[in-house]
């Protein structure tokens, strides 16, 4: 589970590609790391196996690498900076 069981390569049908630049634009519930709201990072891995409600392949938990930290988000919490969120 977590980064250890993450998939570190592109998954067909996933909402992003590995390495995509993303920005945290919202938080769906209070388990999210609020400190990253508004921050930009890169998609590091997809996680489908921890039993948090994920659906393969389109709704993984998405591991995002920020400068020195990693955190996981749902797809609607992230946007590509080019989508008008930068």
């Amino acid at each position, binding site marked *: *589970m977590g980064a250890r069981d993450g998939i570190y390569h592109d998954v067909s049908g996933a909402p992003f590609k590995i390495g995509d630049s993303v920005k945290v634009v919202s938080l769906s*519930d209070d388990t999210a790391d609020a400190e990253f709201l508004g921050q930009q990072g890169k998609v590091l891995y997809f*996680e489908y196996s921890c*039993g948090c*409600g994920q659906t393969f392949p389109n*709704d993984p*938990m998405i591991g995002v690498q920020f400068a020195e930290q*990693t*955190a996981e*988000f749902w797809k609607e919490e992230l946007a590509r900076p080019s989508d008008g969120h930068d």
Partner: protein
Amino acid sequence: MGTIDAVARGARDDKAIAAAIGGLDARQRRYYRRAAEVLGFTARDANHHSIVTPAGKEFASADSAVKQGLFVRAVLSNPLFQRLLPFLEAKGATGATRDELELFLNAVAELGAASMVERRVSSYQGWLVKLGLAKMAGRRCVLDHLPAAVPLVRYESDEEPIFPNRYDLKEYQEQAQRVASKQEAIEYYVEPWKVAGLPSNSRIVFVDDLIGTGSQSVDYINRKLSSLFASSHRPCLFSVCATPTGIEAVKQYSTFEVICAMELEELVFNHYDERNATFTSTERKNLHDLNERLGQNFFVMGLLVAFYYSSPDNTMPLIWRDGIQYTDADGRENSWFALLPRKS
């Protein structure tokens, strides 16, 4: 299950729990910690640290075979699953699709944004299957037989009385005359078990005073009333008044037809609706704030409806929540005096 054992061994916060289980991302460990709390195995102390409840202690000290049974019992005792199981039971061998489960749970519980509803229903469905309480038949979730090892489960019931015992509203007078004129053709059954023996195609009418969100009606129908009649019968819920949301919920999640004497249209009766002209936006906000202080689970419908014998819990709490301790806008502790206290 690892979260409960970790807390029992002394893990108190997210990091310690994650370290005890291993390999968890911060968000995942928060979900796991929350799940243990929802199932009643752990709680937070005043410092926000996790502690085991008596159920958690029992779980942590049990062997793996007993643990499974305790976990099943916790799931079956959870209010959300106690709503979900009768719904699945009513679906019989056909089961329910995930869309149907989402629609139902979204109507009877607060599950957050639409995307989170999908995920939570996915998790609940996963739990039921993993614990052997349900199975997947293609894309449909079908309730299975309970495992023999499941201990006795207390099944809570918080429904309003569905049969008011007195009424004298004018709206009933015409109906009463019609009933009187058909008296010879009508049979009354006081003993509910006799309902099952009624001839095929009989129309069976149950009477209620208010359908609010519809969740209590659906719950009561699926848990208690559905078992009373045969599939050939035509059940109907007659209510003095009902909201469109409630009518839709009963129609969608039960086999009952709904008839009501007065439909409480959102525009007129939901006093939180911005289109409702009864209150200004400032007054609405103040009402919302006050009602939230008095009982956040009871105020979503914005109703101001009361009967002479009691107030429904869909009516604003400020009308009926008598003697409730609350903190006012200035931070003072107060006790609320309700105009029309609710009687149970």
